[in-house]
């Protein structure tokens, strides 16, 4: 019995993670994307800002301190590849 208790704990942890990890609903509006170039050279370059490849689908997006540099976008629609579709509406998130 004691032997299998470890396995039981592993299964319990697997169940807990299945219930607590947020599941993404891609291709519909309301997704959040983090800007990969935040804090890097060229972060404010418009061609980088408007390139969907520079964004990663995250859940949730964390931009706690408002500022002037883009850290991601929220309320965006996925383009089907894990990047935001900038032809649809989205909200820019900024931070220091």
């Amino acid at each position: 019995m004691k032997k299998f208790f470890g396995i039981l704990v592993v299964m319990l942890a697997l169940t807990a993670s299945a219930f607590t990890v947020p599941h993404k609903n891609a291709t519909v509006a309301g997704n959040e994307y983090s800007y990969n170039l935040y804090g890097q050279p060229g972060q404010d370059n418009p061609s980088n800002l408007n390139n969907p490849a520079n964004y990663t689908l995250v859940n949730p997006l964390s931009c706690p301190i408002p500022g002037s540099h883009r850290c991601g976008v929220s309320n965006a629609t996925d383009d089907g590849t894990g990047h935001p579709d900038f032809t649809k509406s989205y909200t820019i998130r900024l931070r220091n």
Partner: protein
Amino acid sequence: MFFIATVMKNNTFIQIIQSLACYLLIFLFTYTGVSKLLDHSSFEAAILQSPILRNYSKIISWLLPVSEFFIVVMLLWKRYRRTGFLLSLFTLTVFTIYIGYMVLFVPSLPCSCGGVLKQLSWSGHILFNCFFIILILGSLFTNTSNKIFIAINRKSRKPV
């Protein structure tokens, strides 16, 4: 003081503490490892925002959950449990040093931890890690399983 000394001498009590520490660590590492893999893009994005880990985000985002599963296997296997405890201690100490750095220099960045642990603040995370570090140290220092000696009479070869 006498009461504590009496209790600490009790092997059953020590074994319960060791088992509790072991199962809590198994739960913690399985949970965080699976959460990191299930939400891998978020985890990698959080590492990308860290000033010291940014350049290694791809490797770390895979290496960390795999290491956590490796520790779980060590802890599950009674023969390697002590190694599992030592690896857990090393991992949690490195995490705590990293968190200390984040608290001091970049407190606005998100935590790259898995599951509900994301909700913890940086200082809350330090307390959480310290609890587990104390638990591991307690288990390692009270580990008597490999310190059993049998006195043998040289003449009779029988235990005395």
